[in-house]
């Protein structure tokens, strides 16, 4: 693109043409305090401790959340264990009907839940409304249908539930991650103690209200809120027969160490530094859109974010120009505004981490390109979308998971080099390949060391599509037929 063309794009799409605010006005019914959801009821924490949950876009306190201590986790585990046999004996079809019911209730409450998710976590309402909520509902609907078909899912085996599952989920897709964990566990006849992330407990607690409404038997799902200490209590509890964790590789490793003396099956969905490879023969406009969605979706708080862009050298300049133009059009700000593309960073802690990694990128000599930042709200945690060029594979921004809206752009000359560079990482969650040549797609996809490969697309998710990584991105799959495997014996 010439500079004149670039100016034309700016004139057509720039800030002169800003949208009017379109705030979402629905407000969910947020209580001032939330107990722990144990044995079908909300209970005061025996620990006596609570903590505040805030809206990262405003700093406003939303509610006080209970911090589950040892006695609380014990109570949740006891409830899950007590509910186990009856739930496991229930006919698959009946178990499935609870999941179908839940899917329906989520759909009916989708607007309130989407707003709640956005208020508690900072993600744009557009995304919680169009991605998180529909997928969460779909997940329960999909797995509801598996509950009475397990004998065909596991041909030749007489599978049984594992028992009590300890499940720990992250803050980037709070409700959706709860759905990913709960749905297959329940469909297979297990009972659950779920621990949401401490900055985003609300949607799980509202999900607990729906579990009461659908008359799910008490104890089948228990939700204990708290931070890392609570998580450790859940993962290491003697009652658990299965642990599923989504979060950082660092914590995943600690869980493996904690459980090393025991034969507890694990599902780990950990970090990533996924490569998005764009060949010169790709449909460039589509590739630009895919790269944008790949890294800036959900502020880059995505384990499978396409955070390393590998562009064929011959198209680097026009591609980077197009990316810069597209980045300039992203609307950063009030997550409750329906026009917002990039919302708030989830927590102060995460913002600090992103800032320090970006500073490290600059110190190492990479060139930072960031979106205009003059209109960012004064309160809350914000980090505008950005990307680095001039990145060496050895740079911190090319190696470490940033979990923020930061893209590292690198180049390659041959397919072999692209494959080598893409695989030169301890992670192996996802990869993207952009080319119009079918044979090239299959060969690159085959050789990617990753559990999910998006070809001419990126960041697609579906209840029926197994998701999970290899290498230090973890093991086990969630979603689809393969996601059931972790929940039976």
């Amino acid at each position, binding site marked *: 693109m010439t500079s004149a063309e670039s100016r034309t794009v700016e004139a057509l799409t720039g800030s002169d043409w800003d949208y009017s605010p379109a705030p979402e006005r629905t407000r969910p019914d947020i209580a001032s305090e939330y107990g722990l959801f144990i044995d079908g009821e909300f209970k005061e924490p025996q620990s006596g401790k609570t903590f505040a949950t805030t809206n990262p876009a405003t700093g406003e306190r939303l509610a006080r959340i209970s911090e589950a201590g040892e006695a609380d986790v014990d109570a949740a585990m006891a409830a899950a264990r007590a509910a186990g046999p009856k739930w496991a004996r229930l006919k698959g079809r009946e178990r499935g009907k609870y999941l179908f019911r839940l899917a329906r209730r989520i759909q009916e409450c989708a607007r309130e839940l989407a707003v709640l998710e956005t208020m508690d976590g900072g993600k744009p309402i557009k995304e919680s409304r169009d991605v998180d909520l529909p997928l969460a509902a*779909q997940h329960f609907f999909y797995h509801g249908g598996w509950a009475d078909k397990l004998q065909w899912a*596991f041909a*030749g*085996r007489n599978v049984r539930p594992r028992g009590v599952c300890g499940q720990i989920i992250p803050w980037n897709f709070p409700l959706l991650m709860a759905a990913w964990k709960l749905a297959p566990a329940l469909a297979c006849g297990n009972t659950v103690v779920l621990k949401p992330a401490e900055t985003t407990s609300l949607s799980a607690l509202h999900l607990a209200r729906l579990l009461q409404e659908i008359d799910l038997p008490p104890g089948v799902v228990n939700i204990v809120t708290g931070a890392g200490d609570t998580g450790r209590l859940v993962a290491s509890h003697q009652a658990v027969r299965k642990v599923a964790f989504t979060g950082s*590789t660092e914590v*995943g*490793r600690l869980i*493996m*160490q904690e*459980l*090393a*003396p025991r*034969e507890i099956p694990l599902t*780990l969905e*950990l970090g990533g530094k996924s490569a998005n490879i764009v060949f010169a023969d790709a449909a460039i406009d589509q590739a630009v859109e895919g790269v944008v969605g790949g890294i800036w979706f959900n502020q880059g708080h995505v384990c499978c974010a396409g955070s390393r862009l590998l562009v064929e050298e011959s198209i680097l300049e026009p591609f980077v120009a197009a990316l810069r133009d597209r980045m300039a059009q992203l609307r950063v700000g009030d997550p409750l505004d329906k026009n917002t593309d990039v919302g708030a960073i989830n927590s102060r802690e995460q913002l600090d981490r992103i800032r320090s990694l970006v500073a490290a990128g600059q110190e190492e000599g990479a060139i930072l390109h960031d979106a205009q930042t003059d209109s960012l709200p004064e309160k809350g945690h914000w980090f505008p979308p950005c990307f680095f060029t001039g990145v060496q594979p050895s740079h911190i921004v090319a190696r470490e998971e940033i979990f923020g809206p930061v893209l590292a752009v690198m180049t390659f000359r041959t397919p072999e080099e692209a494959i080598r560079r893409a695989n030169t990482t*301890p992670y192996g969650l996802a990869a993207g390949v952009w080319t119009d040549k079918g044979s090239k*797609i299959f060969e690159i*996809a*085959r050789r*990617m060391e*990753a*559990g*999910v*490969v*998006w*070809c*001419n*697309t990126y960041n*697609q998710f*579906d*209840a*029926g*599509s*197994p*998701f*999970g990584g*290899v*290498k*230090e*991105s*973890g*093991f086990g*799959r969630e979603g*689809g*037929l*393969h996601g059931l*495997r972790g929940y039976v014996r």
Partner: protein
Amino acid sequence: MSRLEVVKTGKLWIGGDWPRSESGATFVVENGKGETVARCALASRKDAREAVEAARAGLPAWRDATATLRGQVLYRAAEMLESRADEFTASLCDGGEGLAAARREVERSVDRLVMLAGWCDKIHQIIGCQNAVAGPYHNFTIPQACGVVVTFCPASPALLGMITLVGAAMATGNAVVAVVPRAAAMTGVLLGEVLAVSDVPKGAVNCLTGDIEPLLEPLGGHREVAVMVSSGLGKAARTTLRLAASDGIRRVHTIPWTGTDWEDDGETCSPWFLEQFVEFKTLWHPSGV
């Protein structure tokens, strides 16, 4: 006139070569009567690392061979095993097995290998699938080899256990480092000799004999190892292995089978067993014109 017997020294099998242990150490393999049957190389930590490197180097040739070809190679190995049945029977008898039981184990092992050979070009169809997603995308999930697999083979059944673990890893396209305990060492060496003349690419299978404990950490913590499958390890050893594996977030599968469990084809050749040796990869592509 009595003839002095030529006693064989069993060596390691690494990268297609037959080195003695880098440490030079050996151990004595005795039969049930306390007579020396053979000496075997005692694998060191360095041997273990070298075996992993060799497996990594040998992986592409095996993994990227067509599934049909891999099946034929495994079938060839079954042919070679059958032709050396007496030798294997004797080796198992040296390990304390009765003659009839040893014969049965060898026959079962040949048959197991034939069954696994047949899986090479079929397992994908059983455990892979197409996924109906809610959008205009073609989406499918395929099993792929994990990479380098370490199999901790049981002392008993020496041959059938090793054939099952190594054969399953091979059938799914992995390169293997087989770790064989002292009691099964000579059988392990013989099996290596069989595979070595069955068109298995150099380094695709490697065999280490000796004491398991010193090898747990170097193998479990090696980043080129994708998966470990353990059989016959005690609780402490399994814990050590899992702790080492946690460093690289590597999977450790514990095989619970003992004794006659290994004879059950329905369990030991099931897709659910073979699945422990694959990674599932899900591919998405838009569909439209």
